[in-house]
């Protein structure tokens, strides 16, 4: 002010600026003087320091007091310098008793070490740990404790601040959550186990699973399901229509109806045929399922599918073999009785022949009648062959040797229109069978082949070898092993499956009345079975038929017997005991023997015969039927005689050679005369037995 010359040079605007700044400074001073400020900021060597005035930190204090976490300040060794209300409540103590106490008072055992580690951890950083506080009332409170260094002043002793959060609720929630998780995990495990065992069961049963969603028409399938349908690579979505298209056209409507019905009935079950996709084979599948509803509306059908083709084949084979067995028994019974009738007729004819004065007419009648008996006997042989009750003269033979001798026979049998081709086997194969029966069987097949080719064609006779494993053999009702297969193939009309099913039945024929007996294939069938083999047929309408006789292969060649025919009757002397239950047959047999020069005793049963022998009657030969009713049949009689009358020779006779019974006795040198026999047959047999004995 004492230098007015300087002021005069100050611009007016500068003056105003200075005035304003002066006013600002005065206002600041006034405000401080009047206490209108909260804090003063003072610059210093260590930066700006804020000095708060009265109550400036009150809101923070309130905040700390009222928060839901416990808060403490601690000295370096854990003595509490301050704690809020919440912390006091946590440990269940009065705040007044806590200040100056060590916080370790509320930590039990190991927890103290955990706390001390927490306190000494990296200084300057916040750190935290989960601890358990032991409250005054004995409760254990799980807490999270966060510790941080409280930077106040370098001169001040070290102070730490801690925030303690009660974890009780959170732990409870965690426990609940863990328990819920555990339950869930167990349920998942359980469900997986159920699914696994279901899968195992389905796999074991070779069943596929499917699930048809009716709302959006999609079909979910398992891998096995697709395998059954021959769908090799997993393919696009299926609907009901896709599934229907897998079934053979004839079955589609029926399958569709089954599924429609399932929507109301609640379940579905059927067996139908499909065309398997990968190989086009026709397979039978069984489909079973259940319908699921939502608000009374069918929403999906779910179930299983399995391939039952093999089961059906086995059932079919079983039915077929049971049928053949039953027919065989019936046929065998008829043949037995029929043989006795033929025996009576034939024997009577033989005796008439010797007793009546002959003229041309009588001779012709007798010849015709005898011819009839022979035809009847042939027919009967075929019936017996089918029922497997004929007497097989089994020997080891080379099929090729036989087939070569058949060639001429076949040429004559089939006529000129048919070309006969013989395909010889590359090796010589042997099998054990009755050569005569095999010849008859091949002839029967040749005649059938000829009749199947009225316009001519080719007949092929072929020998092959087939090795059958257990499965293939069982399917044919035979045992596993090597078989020699003799096949007769024609290029004729062929047969439909329903005809094939019945061809082996006796008297089943597709030929015109009078043209066939219906016994040809029956003989083939019975002969093959009795030889331990089987017959297979392959046929296709319009293409031809191949019938193969499978005979078990034999390993070694046995010497074949050479039987010389000497068809001349031989008379003899001696007393013959005729044992026969059928009185007509007994009368004929006795007459025939008497004609041959023998004396005859008769017995109706085995026991009656034994009585005669026991009485000491002189008997040079016992001529007995094998099959007789009552307690003692022919075989029993032979056994009884072995004990008491071993010296008397025996000749057996039967029209019904039950092979099993006879074979054992035959091995002991017993001879068997097959019914019906002629007087010549009888004379030779009796002579042979008595000569052996003499």
């Amino acid at each position, binding site marked *: 002010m004492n230098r007015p010359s300087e002021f005069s040079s100050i611009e007016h605007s500068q003056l105003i600026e200075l005035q304003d700044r002066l006013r600002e400074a005065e*206002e600041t001073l006034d405000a401080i003087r009047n206490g*209108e400020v*909260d804090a003063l*900021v003072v610059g210093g060597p260590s930066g*700006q320091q*804020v000095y708060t005035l009265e109550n400036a930190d009150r809101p923070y204090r309130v905040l700390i007091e009222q928060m839901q976490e416990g808060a403490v300040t601690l000295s370096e060794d854990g003595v509490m310098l301050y704690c809020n209300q919440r912390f006091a409540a946590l440990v269940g103590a009065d705040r007044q008793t806590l200040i100056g106490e060590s916080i370790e008072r509320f930590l039990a055992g190991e927890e103290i070490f955990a706390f001390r580690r927490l306190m000494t951890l990296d200084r300057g950083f916040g750190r935290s740990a989960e601890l358990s506080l032991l409250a005054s009332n004995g409760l254990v409170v799980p807490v999270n404790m966060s510790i941080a260094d409280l930077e106040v002043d370098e001169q001040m002793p070290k102070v730490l601040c801690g925030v303690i959060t009660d974890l009780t609720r959170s732990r409870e929630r965690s426990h609940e959550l863990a328990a819920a998780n555990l339950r869930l995990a167990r349920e998942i495990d359980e469900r997986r186990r159920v699914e696994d065992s279901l899968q195992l069961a389905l796999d074991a049963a070779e069943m596929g699973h499917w699930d048809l969603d009716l709302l959006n028409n999609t079909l979910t399938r398992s891998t096995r399901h697709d395998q059954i349908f021959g769908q090799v690579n997993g393919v696009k979505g299926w609907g009901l229509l896709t599934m229907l298209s897998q079934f053979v056209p004839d079955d589609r409507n029926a399958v569709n109806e089954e599924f429609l019905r399932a929507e109301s009935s609640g379940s579905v079950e059927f067996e139908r045929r499909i065309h398997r996709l990968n190989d086009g084979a026709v397979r039978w599948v069984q489909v079973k399922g259940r319908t699921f509803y939502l608000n009374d509306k069918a929403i999906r059908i779910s179930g299983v599918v399995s391939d039952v083709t093999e089961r059906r084949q086995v059932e079919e084979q079983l039915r077929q073999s049971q049928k053949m067995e039953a027919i065989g028994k019936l046929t065998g019974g008829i043949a037995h009785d029929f043989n006795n009738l033929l025996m009576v007729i034939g024997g009577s004819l033989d005796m008439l022949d010797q007793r009546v004065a002959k003229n041309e007419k009588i001779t012709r009648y007798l010849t015709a009648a005898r011819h009839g008996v022979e035809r009847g006997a042939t027919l009967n042989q075929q019936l017996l062959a089918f029922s497997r009750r004929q007497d097989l003269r089994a020997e080891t033979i080379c099929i090729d040797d036989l087939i070569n001798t058949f060639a001429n026979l076949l040429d004559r049998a089939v006529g000129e229109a048919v070309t006969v081709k013989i395909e010889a086997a590359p090796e010589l194969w042997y099998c054990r069978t009755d050569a005569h029966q095999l010849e008859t069987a091949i002839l029967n097949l040749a005649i059938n082949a000829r009749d199947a080719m009225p316009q001519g064609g080719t007949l092929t006779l072929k020998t092959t070898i087939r090795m059958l494993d257990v499965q293939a053999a069982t399917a044919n009702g035979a045992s596993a092993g090597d078989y020699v297969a003799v096949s007769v193939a024609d290029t004729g009309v062929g047969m439909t499956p329903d005809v094939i099913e019945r061809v082996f039945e006796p008297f089943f024929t597709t030929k015109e009345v009078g043209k066939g007996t219906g016994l040809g294939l029956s003989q083939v069938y019975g002969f093959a079975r009795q030889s331990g083999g089987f017959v297979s047929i392959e046929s296709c309408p319009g293409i031809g038929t191949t019938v193969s006789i499978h005979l078990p292969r034999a390993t070694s060649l046995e010497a074949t017997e050479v039987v010389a025919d000497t068809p001349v009757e031989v008379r003899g002397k001696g007393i013959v005991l005729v044992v026969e239950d059928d009185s007509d047959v007994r009368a004929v047999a006795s007459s025939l023997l008497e004609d041959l020069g023998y004396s005859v005793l008769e017995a109706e049963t085995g026991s009656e015969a034994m009585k005669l022998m026991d009485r000491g009657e002189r008997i040079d030969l016992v001529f007995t039927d094998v099959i007789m009713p009552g307690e003692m049949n022919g075989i029993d009689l032979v056994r009884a005689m072995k004990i008491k009358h071993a010296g008397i020779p025996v000749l057996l006779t039967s029209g019904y050679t039950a092979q099993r019974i006879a074979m054992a006795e035959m091995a002991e040198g017993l001879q068997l005369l097959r019914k019906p026999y002629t007087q010549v047959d009888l004379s030779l047999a009796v002579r042979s037995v008595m000569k052996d004995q003499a």
Partner: protein
Amino acid sequence: MTDHNDSDLPEGQYKLRLFITGSTPRSTRAIENMRRICAENLEGRYDLEVVDVYQDPEATKDLQIIATPTLVKILPEPLRRIIGDLSDRERVLAGLDIAPLGKGDHE
């Protein structure tokens, strides 16, 4: 004080900074008063920063703050400091060089 001259600020725009001390009643009142004054008189043409000197003591240095609460008008120049809880509206408006609404234009 040229370092506070934000030249990118449009003409007539106010740049203000309010220094307070935590959540004290006076600081709270200062914030409320400031917001009301701004809303009523500077709608759309102000940029206000509130600085808590507890959290950022160094921020007081440049603007030579010696007590809180203090409002600083950084722009438009000249720089002015208004101390107190800003309850004297007339004084605040004068400090900000704004004529109160409803009154005649300031000379």
